[in-house]
């Protein structure tokens, strides 16, 4: 083993996917980081690989009733319901601010129909500070749109194609784990023009308060995230990375640098840190530092050498 671990003094953390070069593979997961402003009190945003924004829709969405969150074993459920102020307010308030922060911005996009997704992207095309889009076809917390598009191939492809038709910018499609075979969906969106896929969104779940006999979430069901879902996410990243040619972004329960390494080994080209931001607002930096430390310890000169390097 030792001869495979040359001494490394500096690690090249950069990764490239879908034509985007990132200074490192650590991104934020949509919906856990707003547009970054709240976290700027705790971390230097310019150290991130990219910021993935909260989902933005054509019109303002008010989201679901409270309670919207419940802690579960090694995880949490949420049913926010894509509350957001709409793309106009997003551009004026959030994107302007974020585009001055020296960090690539990936805008996460939601809609009720393929046309609506496309209209959001069309509006964003005129904004300079967008590095890529992430199309959300996997939110379990809305009745229309969201996961309804991401659980069968034809609608997933339709949304991807509609957005593809209006942009040449890199297009990431975020996949739902609430499917029988995630590789089918991944292939469908790849064929429809996706430049990359990110996975997984939350797993549909529920929690009950036995004392009151009531569901813990007002909407009854919600999306499970956190360390509890990491094994499922790893498995799906591994499956999808072998099924498609486009890059895969791994997300699901990443709390540490070692977690990030595991996703890279499974085939991810980059990772997203989500729920961990709620636990510790400096989590992204701890993941980045841990990843770097791992590379030094294992003599990995380029972090990209870890991608798909799982030894089965």
């Amino acid at each position, binding site marked *: 083993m030792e001869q495979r671990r040359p001494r490394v003094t500096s690690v090249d953390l950069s990764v490239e996917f879908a034509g985007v070069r990132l200074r490192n593979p650590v991104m934020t997961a949509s919906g856990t*980081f*707003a547009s970054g402003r709240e976290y700027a009190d705790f971390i230097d945003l310019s150290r991130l690989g990219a910021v993935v924004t909260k989902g933005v829709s054509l019109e303002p969405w008010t989201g679901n009733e*409270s309670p919207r*969150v419940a*802690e579960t074993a*090694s995880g*949490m459920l949420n049913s*926010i319901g894509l509350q957001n102020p709409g793309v106009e307010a997003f551009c004026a308030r959030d994107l302007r601010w974020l585009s001055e922060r020296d960090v690539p911005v990936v805008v996460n996009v939601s809609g009720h129909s393929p046309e609506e997704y496309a209209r959001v992207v069309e509006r964003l095309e005129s904004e300079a500070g967008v590095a890529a889009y992430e199309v959300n076809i996997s939110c379990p917390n809305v009745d229309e749109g969201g996961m309804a598009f991401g659980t069968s191939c034809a609608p997933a492809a339709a949304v991807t194609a509609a957005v593809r038709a209006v942009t040449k910018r890199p297009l990431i499609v975020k996949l739902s784990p609430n499917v029988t075979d995630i590789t089918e969906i991944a292939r469908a969106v790849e064929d429809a023009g996706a430049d990359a896929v990110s996975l997984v969104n939350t797993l549909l779940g529920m929690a009950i308060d036995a004392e009151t006999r009531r569901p813990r979430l007002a909407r009854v069901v919600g999306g499970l995230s956190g360390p509890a879902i990491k094994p499922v996410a790893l498995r799906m990243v591994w499956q999808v990375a072998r099924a498609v040619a486009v890059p895969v972004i791994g997300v699901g329960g990443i709390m540490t640098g070692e977690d990030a390494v595991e996703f890279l080994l499974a085939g991810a080209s980059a990772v997203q840190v989500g729920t961990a*931001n709620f636990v510790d607002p400096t989590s992204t930096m701890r993941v980045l530092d841990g990843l770097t430390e791992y590379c030094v310890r294992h003599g990995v000169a380029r972090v990209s050498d870890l991608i798909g390097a799982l030894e089965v």
Partner: protein
Amino acid sequence: MSCSDLDAGQHPLLERVEVLANERVAEGVGLLVLRSPRIAAAVAPGQFVHLRIAAGADFLLRRPFSVYRAHGDTIELLYQVLGRGTRELADHMRGDVMDAIGPLGRGWDVPEDAAHVLLVAGGLGAAPLGMLAERLAARGVAVSVAQGAPCAERLVARDLFESVARRVEVATDDGSAGEPGFVTVVSHRLLVTDRPDVVCVCGPEVMARAVAAQAAEAGVPCRVSLERLMACGIGACLSCVVTTVDGRKRACVDGPVFDAEEVCWDGAEAPPRH
């Protein structure tokens, strides 16, 4: 003490805090004293801290607690043992270390020219009012308190209120102290017979709503501190929303103290069990 002015431009801190004491003050109620010099120096009445109760994934989410008192290097938190997180918290010992984010949120907004403030506390709703009572009294503002609880033992913070307030009137569900019944009977009487310039309320949401209606009828401005389950505590996750006349706002950064007139009370929340 226009607390919103104090909050303007304030940045939350991430601080390692040490348990100096953790004692039972009533059935199911604990008082946690933490060494937390940076948060203690910055916190304003009505603000809260977001505590990571334990490392690891067992208690993944932080829990928000109002700061009950802040003196020197220490902050004090009152908590009710209601769920698994607060049961774990009750087992913390002197010397244990946790990490806290704070001070968070917009605290009590009491106009500079207020001469008489009525505080209405229901149960653990006394927690965010303790520090307010102390600071108002220190400023020479007359403080009245209407306090309610299930029984005399659960009138937490009563000693503090009695040491700084001009008058304290209580009600208990079982009649073991003060008037039998709800605190809303006391708050209504004080609003009518000893009119304050502002009312500050914290307690179960149905109680806060009732007091807000009494204040509106009396033409007295009313502030309410609302409780919601929250994840991040810093405004990012949108878990803790409160429905207001201006749409859904975040309890963690736009509150937890709201002007009662902006709150849409329909569908008042059951208390979070964390």
